[in-house]
């Protein structure tokens, strides 16, 4: 089990009702971690264009998670 900080942005922040939470999770990847969050927050949708970052570095959905990581879930972006 890893202790993780999970942060939600934009529509994900609104879907979860929070910007950040601390979780203890057995999820080995961001993909699995997101699925856990989506069970807690039914409005959270795994858009294809969603991205994930670990400790302020863009990561892939199957990157390994380590104890103490901060995981950022980004819904599809729309800059400009």
């Amino acid at each position, binding site marked *: 089990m890893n202790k993780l900080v999970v942060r939600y*942005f*934009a*529509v994900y922040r*609104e879907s979860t009702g929070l910007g950040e939470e601390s979780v203890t999770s057995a999820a080995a990847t961001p993909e699995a971690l997101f699925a856990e969050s989506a069970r807690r927050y039914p409005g959270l*949708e*795994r*858009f*294809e*264009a*969603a*991205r994930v*970052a670990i400790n*302020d570095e*863009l990561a892939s959905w199957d990157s390994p998670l380590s104890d103490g990581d901060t995981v*950022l879930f*980004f*819904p*599809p*972006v*729309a*800059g*400009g």
Partner: protein
Amino acid sequence: MFEICTGSVDSTRLARELADPACGGYATFEGWVRNHHEGRSVSGLEYEVYEPLAVKEGETVLAEALERFDINRAACIHAQGALDIGELAVWVGVSAPHRDAAFDACRYIIDQIKIRLPIWKKEFYVEGDSGWVNCEVCASKV
């Protein structure tokens, strides 16, 4: 030379830094808050920006442009927070010896900024509701 600012962009200072006596061409792009989007009347926007990664990725985009095109200087500012119609949401400027490269690099930068930076746009409609751009429209579920 990538910056995030709060509220409408003021490009004066960064634009001045693009001046270069070896450059004959200078191209800029500005994104303004438009009063309509996909058939709906828009009353204003709010940009949410995750600044640490937006700045890092924005600097990467500018470095790529300097690498790929024959340009001398490039800069970009993106707004965060609430903006009214007509306000400046994003500004890109590029100076180059010749105009071809200035145009191409300016276009490259704004295209990449729009798709790669952790920036989200919430539109407020004149009917009073609001929506995150790209969420329901452009994005499909996995």
